[in-house]
């Protein structure tokens, strides 16, 4: 799925310890280097996702997040720094990711996912990580990844709960299978500790890494439901909707 890009001696030194992971190796690292990942919003979830993907050596990161850094971002949005208050979040994210890993390409987009940019941004990515706080943005991304046949790691949280699934169009439920309509009560502002969003973000980053490199089991057709209040993690089987208006036309493989 992803073109491998040859590793340099710097890459080998930098990623040596993860290359030791069974099933990953230099081949997996070369796939990460050749990959482009779009992260929608670099808030409490998207920031640690992008940070882990940059640390792991994903070759090209596109980070879409509009607006300026606010004080209330700083308890969880780990790519935002105090010295960048009042300035664009996308710039803060770019700076922090480049400080961490100057050997990858980082592209900050100073706007959120919208009808105007979703097709182009998804089109340039091998994989998408959805970490947006609004269902409207999530449904847009979902529609586009299904249309373009891209994998999307779908991560979300509320209070001390979190959910995570990996959407492979035609193979797993898409977001519209799971949630055919936006919930009436959802608000953009919600209770959140950075440690809760960061926990599910690290698992989401690992889903992206495994999908790109092709090793391990991913949450395709399963939803990880985490409760950090009582420290419980469950893997739940989730279902496609045959009448889903977004992905229902895609045939499942015979074994599904």
């Amino acid at each position: 799925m992803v073109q491998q890009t040859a590793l340099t001696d710097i890459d080998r030194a930098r990623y040596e310890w993860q290359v030791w992971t069974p099933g990953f190796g230099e081949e997996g690292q070369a796939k990460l280097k050749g990959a482009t990942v779009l992260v929608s919003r670099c808030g409490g979830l998207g920031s640690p996702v992008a940070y882990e993907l940059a640390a792991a050596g994903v070759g090209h990161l596109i980070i879409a997040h509009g607006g300026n850094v606010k004080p209330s971002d700083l308890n969880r949005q780990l790519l935002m720094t105090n010295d960048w208050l009042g300035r664009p979040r996308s710039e803060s994210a770019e700076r922090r990711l480049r400080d961490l890993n100057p050997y990858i390409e980082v592209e900050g987009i100073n706007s959120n996912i919208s009808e105007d940019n979703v097709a182009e941004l998804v089109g340039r990515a091998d994989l998408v990580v959805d970490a947006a706080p609004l269902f409207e943005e999530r449904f847009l991304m979902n529609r586009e990844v299904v249309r373009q046949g891209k994998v999307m790691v779908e991560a979300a949280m509320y209070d001390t709960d979190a959910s995570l699934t990996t959407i492979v169009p035609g193979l797993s439920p898409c977001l519209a299978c799971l949630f055919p309509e936006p919930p009436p009560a959802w608000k953009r502002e919600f209770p959140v500790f950075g440690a809760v969003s960061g926990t599910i973000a690290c698992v989401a980053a690992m889903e992206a890494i495994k999908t790109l490199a092709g090793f391990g089991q991913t949450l395709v057709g399963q939803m990880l439901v985490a409760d950090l209040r009582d420290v419980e993690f469950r893997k739940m089987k989730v279902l496609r909707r045959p009448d889903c208006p977004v992905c229902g036309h895609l045939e499942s493989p015979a074994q599904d």
Partner: protein
Amino acid sequence: MKINVEYVAQMKKVAGINSETVTLPDGAPVQALVTKLADDHDQPFRDVLLDANASLRKSTLVFIGDDQIEWEVLRELADGDRVTILAPLAGG
């Protein structure tokens, strides 16, 4: 029979509890459980759980054990079943 009900995300908030044990007649389907929960809780809970036709909202996921159920298919519960009700979450 006794059914263990667990709530996820905003269901917890409107229920005011994380989980509860509900007593139902033997052989009752999961649909009867949802009706009883709606009866036992207040309006904010019902608003998240049910739509304007008093049917389960399409975006509310119901699991028995670790398996999501197809809401349209009648599914009998068994004593001790763990039923999880998940309201959509999108925090990022």
